[in-house]
C-alpha cells in the first residue's frame, strides 16, 4: 500500500510517499507498526490528536480499517481557503 505524508508530517518523516508492506488491520495498527520501525515515525506520530488521516482519499478516523486500501495519507489539520 502507498503511505503518503503532507506538510510537517512529510518534513518529519522525510519522504512524501512510500510503499509499505503491512498486515495492519487499522490505521492505528499501521501507526504502531511504523512508529516501532524508526524514531522519525515515532516523532511524527507522537500526538495523534494533531494528525488527520485519509484512507483512499476519504477523511476517516484512526480506528478505520485499512484492509484492501490502496492509499493511506497522514497530515496535520487542513488550512485551506
Amino acid at each position: 500500500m502507498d503511505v503518503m505524508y503532507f506538510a510537517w508530517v512529510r518534513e518529519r518523516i522525510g519522504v512524501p510517499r512510500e510503499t509499505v508492506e503491512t498486515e495492519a488491520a487499522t490505521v492505528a495498527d499501521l501507526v504502531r507498526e511504523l512508529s516501532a520501525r524508526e524514531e522519525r515515525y515515532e516523532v511524527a506520530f507522537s500526538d495523534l490528536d494533531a494528525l488527520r488521516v485519509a484512507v483512499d482519499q476519504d477523511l476517516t478516523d484512526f480506528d478505520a480499517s485499512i484492509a484492501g486500501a490502496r492509499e493511506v495519507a497522514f497530515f496535520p489539520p487542513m488550512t485551506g481557503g
Partner: protein
Amino acid sequence: MRIVVQEAPFDAGAELNAFQAGKTDMGAIVSFSGLVRDLPDAPLRHMLIEHYPGMTERALTKIAQDACERWSLGDVLVIHRFGQMAPGDQIMMVATASPHRKDAFAAADFLMDYLKSRAPFWKKEVTADGSDWVAAKDEDEKALRQWQQG
C-alpha cells in the same frame, strides 16, 4: 459546478463574469476571494500551499455537492491555487448562483467554512526568520459545528 485546482494565477473578474454569463434564471450571484495576507510582525516573503492531488478535487466536489443539496443553487464555482504566492496574490475564489440572495450568501459561507478545514490544503508562511506551517484554529471547527446543528 466547476472545481479547479491549479498552480497558475487566475483572473477572478473574468472568472466571475464567465460564471454569471447566461444565467437568466438566477437572481443572485455571491463571490468570495481569498488573498495572501501579509504578517503584522515579520514581513511575509511568500506563502507555500501544499495539497493532496486527487483528494483535493474529490473533497471540493463533495463540499460543493453538499451545498447544492442544502440550498437552491443553480451553479457553484471553486478555484483554489497551490504552490508559491506573494502577499496580495489571490489564493482562491468561490462563487454561488441562486434564484435568491439568501441562499447564495449562505452557500458561499458554508463552502468557505468547509473548504478551510475539510479540503486537503496546507499553508506555510515563509519570512526572513524562517518558515512555519499555519496552524488550524479551534474556531474553524466551531464554524463547522454551526452548520451541522443547523
